[in-house]
């Protein structure tokens, strides 16, 4: 598919919008349908689409393996870290009310970081599984 002109042009047109839509779903998740999990899958699917059309190696130069592998762990750590921040500020684990003087703003802050954690892990796992499968039949590079 690497040299198919139509696919390349359509992909170049669509991919920015897919990634932007993922960010919209992520940050608008408080108001409309969506959230970290949906945004992560859409973001991952956008990069996978890019990898399908332009080759896995091109996608891997955009998001190298070490970035994707760090994303895997970073998301869960961020999520768990929000919980620990709540503990340190005198609340229970994953209690967002204590994250700010104003309880409602604390909740918003907690939800923001938690959703960011979910987004990072889900996008990382999608990409990692794709890289692993796509490189499976190939000799070591």
């Amino acid at each position, binding site marked *: 598919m690497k040299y198919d002109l139509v696919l390349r042009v359509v992909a170049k047109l669509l991919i920015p919008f897919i990634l932007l839509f993922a960010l919209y779903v992520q940050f608008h998740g408080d108001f409309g349908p969506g959230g970290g999990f*949906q945004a992560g899958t859409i973001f991952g*699917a956008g990069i996978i689409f890019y990898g399908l059309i332009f080759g896995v190696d091109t996608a891997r130069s955009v998001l190298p393996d070490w970035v994707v592998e760090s994303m895997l762990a970073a998301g869960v750590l961020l999520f768990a870290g929000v919980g620990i921040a709540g503990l340190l500020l005198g609340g229970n684990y994953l209690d*967002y009310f204590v994250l700010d003087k104003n309880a409602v703003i604390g909740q918003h802050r907690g939800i923001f970081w938690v959703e960011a954690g979910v987004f990072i892990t889900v996008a990382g796992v999608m990409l990692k599984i794709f890289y692993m499968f796509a490189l499976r039949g190939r000799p070591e590079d």
Partner: protein
Amino acid sequence: MIIDVLLILMAISVLILMRLRNLFAAVVLLGIYSFLMATVLVALDAVDVAMTEAAVGAGVSTVLLLGALLLCKSSEAKPVHKPWLPLTVAVSTGVLLVYGAWGLPDFSDPQAPIHQHVAPRYLQNEVDVPNVVTAVLASFRGFDTLGETTVVFTAGAGIIALLRRRQRVDKDRKNGA
């Protein structure tokens, strides 16, 4: 009404899927099945689940199955045994589930027990996030979501552990270690 049509289409695609021996066609049909499912979810006003279903079920998993197809034969071998036992198990489980579904309260019935328990507290919205689903998932059930994220992480870690070992061994051999 539209949901019935979609469900019938899904049933048809499953029946065709059973008869198919060409794996490429089966993968594409699975993608169609997922898109139908996503449309059903949109019709049920669960847009966020529909987005996930379309992106994961129809998008990513189709890509992964196609990637797997590259590594194996493209048509399924004829089964040695007649699949009567698995068919009986699958059909009886399905019948049981449909029988159980008849006992559920009507769709979006406000008097259903699930809407009388903790849902009123959720809807008071002390979190002040307009999308209640996000409030429930991220705040009220934060532990649950943390667990889910860990499950996703574990899946990724498992894939890495399963598929990378061979490459590592090759590299060691190349370096003479």
